[in-house]
């Protein structure tokens, strides 16, 4: 097994940055010679006018900004990677996100045909460069430098919302795979199984027994790279909150409601609230798998008080109160019962996201997400097509989609709330709350790969 060298790995893969703003720049390579020069300078920080690629190595001083790049298959081709090497990249990446739309649930309003510019022209998207900083002037400065070399097709700005929340009001980003060989104090208290490096980086053993994912040619160059699904996900918070209100009205007069939330328990939710508001929060908590403040529903079904409750250490069982159809449990079923018995813990991926918007004109807002792993098919796509949508992992939810993220339509959507002592109350009629508004499959090349691409001559 190769020795892991953090200097070879881009910095946004193994850990998140302690920086609150991001600008994703969607770039076209219009002059490949100058693009290669840019990559050479970015890899080694040798140019005044080129930001240096941030590595994964620990830093002694917190940097003021970070800079990373992802390259699409079209990008590799445009930079001049020979076709016999292009052929060694995996099919999902070669086809690109738009041709995988059906598997990802990107149909109807989320279909790539409806994506706004620059995502309406996926053939022109060659590089997604990301700048991270706390101050906007750093982002502007980096964009200016980048724009001197590349055609900037568009940008997407993101920021961390207060208290680590997303627009739906949930605390996010709590659970991440913890990787062997990686110093990660932020997630040190998480007792879930540690993931091998092969979960995110090419060239290492994976969580799937015996399986190693193929490194594209040349192997010593592309080792330590990762694949990223960059997603622009619009969140319809208004529809979500409206639905919670409707659901609470429906539940208030339901004969089993006391088994959903005991009388009086509303005192322990959100610091004490009305029965109606508490029921709204129960629906939100069961749909997500966590209360909005992050407390796991599994560990605390009648209260969101965090006192002494671990945010990360719990597991699911056949009698779980956390619904099998909840978002968290679909995305990571942990050690709980699933149909694909060999797949527990094998489809985890690194998630990094920041919120965007609201747009001053349209009000559009949502999440700019990076879903990083060593293999699209085994992780991102597997989770999207079998677990988030369709629900193949549990016969009780098969044929239903994730209530928050899924490709739902009111005519067929349904979600079963669990009750104390078993049984459920079925909710239905909710729309799709998250719409896809853009994205791209990008390779997050290792530092040796960036240097290699910068030296291509074709």
């Amino acid at each position: 097994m190769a020795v892991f060298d953090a200097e070879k790995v881009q910095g946004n893969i193994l850990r998140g940055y302690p920086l609150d703003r991001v600008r994703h720049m969607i770039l076209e390579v219009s002059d490949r010679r100058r693009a290669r020069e840019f990559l050479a300078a970015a890899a080694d920080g040798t140019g005044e006018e080129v930001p240096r690629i941030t590595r994964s190595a620990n830093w002694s001083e917190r940097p003021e900004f970070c800079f990373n790049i992802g390259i699409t298959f079209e990008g590799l081709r445009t930079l001049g990677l020979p076709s016999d090497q292009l052929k060694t990249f995996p099919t999902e990446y070669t086809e690109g996100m738009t041709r995988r739309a059906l598997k990802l649930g990107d149909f109807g309003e989320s279909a790539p045909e409806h994506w706004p510019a620059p995502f309406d022209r996926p053939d022109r998207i060659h590089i997604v460069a990301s700048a991270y900083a706390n101050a906007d002037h750093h982002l502007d400065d980096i964009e200016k430098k980048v724009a001197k070399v590349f055609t900037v097709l568009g940008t997407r700005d993101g920021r961390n919302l207060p208290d680590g929340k997303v627009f739906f009001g949930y605390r996010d980003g709590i659970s991440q795979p913890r990787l062997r060989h990686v110093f990660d104090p932020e997630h040190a208290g998480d007792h879930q199984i540690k993931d091998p490096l092969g979960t995110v980086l090419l060239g290492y053993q994976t969580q799937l027994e015996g399986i190693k994912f193929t490194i594209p040619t040349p192997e010593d160059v592309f080792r330590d790279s990762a694949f990223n699904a960059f997603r622009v996900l619009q969140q319809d918070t208004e529809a979500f909150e409206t639905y919670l209100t409707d659901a609470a009205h429906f539940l208030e007069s339901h004969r089993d409601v006391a088994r959903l939330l005991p009388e009086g328990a509303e005192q322990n939710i959100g610091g004490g609230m009305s029965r109606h508001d508490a029921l709204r929060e129960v629906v939100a908590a069961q749909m997500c798998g966590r209360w909005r403040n992050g407390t796991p529903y599994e560990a605390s079904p009648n209260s969101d008080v965090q006192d002494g409750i671990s945010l990360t250490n719990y597991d699911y069982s056949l009698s779980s109160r956390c619904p099998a159809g909840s978002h968290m449990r679909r995305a990571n079923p942990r050690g709980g019962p699933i149909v694909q018995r060999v797949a527990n813990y094998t489809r985890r991926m690194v998630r990094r996201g920041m919120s965007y918007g609201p747009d001053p004109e349209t009000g559009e807002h949502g999440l700019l997400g990076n879903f990083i792993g060593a293999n699209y098919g085994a992780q991102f796509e597997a989770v999207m097509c079998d677990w988030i949508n369709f629900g193949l992992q549990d016969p009780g939810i098969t044929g239903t989609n994730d209530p928050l993220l899924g490709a739902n339509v009111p005519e067929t959507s349904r979600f079963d709330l669990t009750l104390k002592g078993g049984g459920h109350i079925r909710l239905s009629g909710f729309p799709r709350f998250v719409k896809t508004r853009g994205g791209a499959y990008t390779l997050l090349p290792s530092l040796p790969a960036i240097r290699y691409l910068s030296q291509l001559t074709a």
Partner: protein
Amino acid sequence: MSDDSGWLNSYINSLPERGWFQFLSKYVVVPFWVWREGRPKLPGGPRPSPQPSDNTQRMMNLLMPLKDTSPIGRAKAVMALAQNVDEIFAGLDNVGTVHSARFLLVEDYICMISVYDGDFSNYIRDFISTIGSVFDALMHEVEGGDKLYPSEENVEAFIDWVREHDLFQAPDYPFDLFGLQDEQAGRKPNDPPHDLQTLPRSLILQLHANRNISLGGGYRGYPGYSAAQIRRNLGVGW
């Protein structure tokens, strides 16, 4: 074809039955058509669908060409599977999404015929992760199989290979073939619309690219249920 009873019309109507015309078609017309407007090979297996009911009980018709088609080569392939029957059944059981699977030796192929739920690549990947060694033994007897060895370290290539050798499933409604051909060639489906009369020609050209096909997606006696749902409802545990 015309309804007129003139001699020319009746002669033209009889063309498909005439030997000289059949000869001409087979050795001149079809090869010329293929050269002029051949169709790209269509991918195997069920197509992705947003309909949940389309994602259960999906059919796999995997034709693996034997390296050695003599009785000795055939016996080797049979032995590779026979020695691992227990592992295969345990593996299929652990994958959890399989309704049925069976192996056939037909002409120059060893075939795996299977009914499964969900995405095919997840099924194959989980299967390899569980019992990859069984496939390895078999792949040595299969044409093109050596470069997939060991399957654990060539998962992506293995999955692509299976998709390549899984039979194309012709659409249940014949005229849907046009749209699939358009998409495969990178065009917008049915834009402009196709003349229905050209369907036989399109089919012939497609059968030149995909020699063996599945006629439609197959019949299901109980649509919309996964293997796990059936097991649960029968009370045998999932």
